[in-house]
């Protein structure tokens, strides 16, 4: 009986490691595909009517769309767009959120109250809809969509990081830095930011998948990337038009890639949380 429980535990730990490896391998795969895609954007947009609507084959892994473009190639380009956009959104949003959080943590109490109420007000809007409104106001496109997304993720970062920033206020090193009279910006950069860094990293990973989904959603509705850009959401819109006549691959392939990327990143997030012992927080 005793011997039965022991291998089980070992197995559990190993499967956790396995998940981390799986997530990293998947992400690495996507990065490679993305790099290839970004270098082949022209080919991916080359119209070849003679080849249109070919089903998946050895030559075209995911077939071709109505304009005869290789869906596989366009999915690769889409990986690049998704990864670059989401990385930018998460980095910029995370940085802005970090600034807000530090202002809350080190600044006066009223500033904290005002900023958090403001964050709550932004969070009251469903993320996709607020991103959509901002994007529309700025004019549709991939870059404006990214700006819209950043607006919606800043308060998410700010809220989680603020709790940590407030805690850092009571940490001996911050107190000491204040006592010896270091300037606030210096304390913020030298002491508080490193204190928040693990939470920031976990939060970046946690928001990455969501950002990918929102961007695809915006493009799907028509305010994000515009045709002929090979963005996943836009490709799914395209695929819908052919779905009812039986050309399933045009829309299925980009969605499948999207699901796999988001799963990989979320798997990584779970593992990061596990490792850093960050409290599980759903947003």
């Amino acid at each position, binding site marked *: 009986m005793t011997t039965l429980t022991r291998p089980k535990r070992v197995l559990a730990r190993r*499967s956790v490691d396995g998940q981390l490896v799986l997530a990293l391998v998947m992400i690495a795969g996507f990065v490679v595909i993305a790099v290839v895609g970004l270098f082949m954007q022209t080919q991916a947009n080359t119209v070849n009517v003679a080849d249109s609507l070919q089903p998946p084959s050895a030559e075209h892994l995911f077939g071709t769309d109505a304009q005869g473009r290789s869906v596989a190639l366009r999915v690769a380009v889409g990986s690049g767009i998704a990864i670059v956009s989401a990385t930018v959104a998460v980095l910029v949003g995370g940085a802005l959120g970090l600034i807000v959080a530090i202002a809350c943590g080190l600044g006066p109490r009223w500033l904290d109250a005002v900023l958090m*109420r*403001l964050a*709550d*007000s*932004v969070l*009251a*809007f*469903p*993320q*996709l*809809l*607020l991103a*959509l*409104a*901002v994007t*529309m*106001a*700025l*004019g549709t496109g991939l870059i404006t969509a990214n700006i819209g997304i950043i607006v919606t993720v800043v308060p998410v970062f700010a809220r989680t990081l603020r709790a940590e920033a407030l805690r850092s206020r009571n940490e001996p090193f911050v107190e000491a830095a204040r006592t010896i009279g270091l300037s606030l910006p210096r304390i913020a950069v030298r002491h508080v930011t490193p204190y928040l860094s693990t939470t920031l990293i976990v939060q970046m990973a946690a928001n990455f*998948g969501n950002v990918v*989904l929102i961007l*695809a*959603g915006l493009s*799907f*509705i*028509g*305010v994000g990337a515009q045709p002929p850009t090979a963005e996943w*959401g836009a490709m*799914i819109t395209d*695929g*819908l038009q052919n*779905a*009812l006549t*039986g050309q*399933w691959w045009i*829309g*299925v392939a*980009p*969605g499948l890639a*999207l*699901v796999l*990327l*988001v*799963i990989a990143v*979320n*798997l990584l997030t779970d593992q990061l949380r596990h490792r850093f012992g960050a409290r*599980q927080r*759903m947003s």
Partner: protein
Amino acid sequence: MPTYILRQVLGVLQTLLLSSIISFAVLRLLPGDPARLIVGPLAGQAALDAVREQLGLNDPVIVQYFDYVGGFLTGNWGYSYSNGADVTAVLAARLPATIELALYAFLFALVVAIVVATIASYRRGIVGALAKFFSLIGLGTPPFWLALVLLLVFSVNLKVLPGPSGRLTSFLQPPPTITGLYTVDALLSGNVVAFSDALAHLVLPAIALAVIPCAFLTRLLTANLEDAARGAFVTVVRSKGVSRWSTHTRHVLHNALLPTVSSSGVVLAALITGSVLVEEIFDWPGVGQVLVQGIQRQDFAVVQTFILLSAVIYVLVNLLVDVVVGFVDPRLRLQRAGS
């Protein structure tokens, strides 16, 4: 107790005030001229000025803001930039379709989440791992893509469910309006054909809409169940001779459900967002479809109203849930009495 609710309400009012400012700011202060959108790129300066005057765009920003909020509060949500329709009337006419769809999606998500999470937290091992995998996939699946896949499988290939054709097959008469929900109205008027047809039309969009809320609820509930199962009271209940399964369903689940209900706001937001993404695909005549059509026509009046409205609903539902859970959950009653 009243002070607790009062404090909540005050907080909500502050949030709503700021939300309306945000919404107004996005509408008026960002580049882009609504008057130009209305008159079109080719219209002359005179027409543009006339529309600007009519919309009050020449007034000071503060006045414009109060006009905007006043209009919103009095249910006067303006007119569609593209076809002049009364936005309030358009949204009101389409709301029942969205409510019906969201309701079925929510029920589906809730039932599946409770069943999956309960079993997963009862039997860890393979079943638990499968449930975690399921919610991992669910959280990463865009509803519009799932809609496409579902249509391909069940409508195009298996031909067991209708394709994108709205709420009813076109030759059927909608049942007389009582609640506005076709399935309910059909049942109330004894129209079995309309009921089954309406239900068949609901299945695919409801599942597509349910996937993210369902995955979210499954994940949250599983975590809450695992938390609750560690409580000392579980051992005591077992010591009474109650079986592990009964302990799990009667005590652990009850303890885990209440904190799960508190996050209804997230589920609601996912349903609102999902209806925007899914309705157009199924030609579902709801508010989400109006929004998407409004976007395609650059119709700010519709878009802004919808977005502010969804924020207001979100905040109010959260307030309601807080208050209700506060009453229902004895643990929170204690905390409140203490605070």
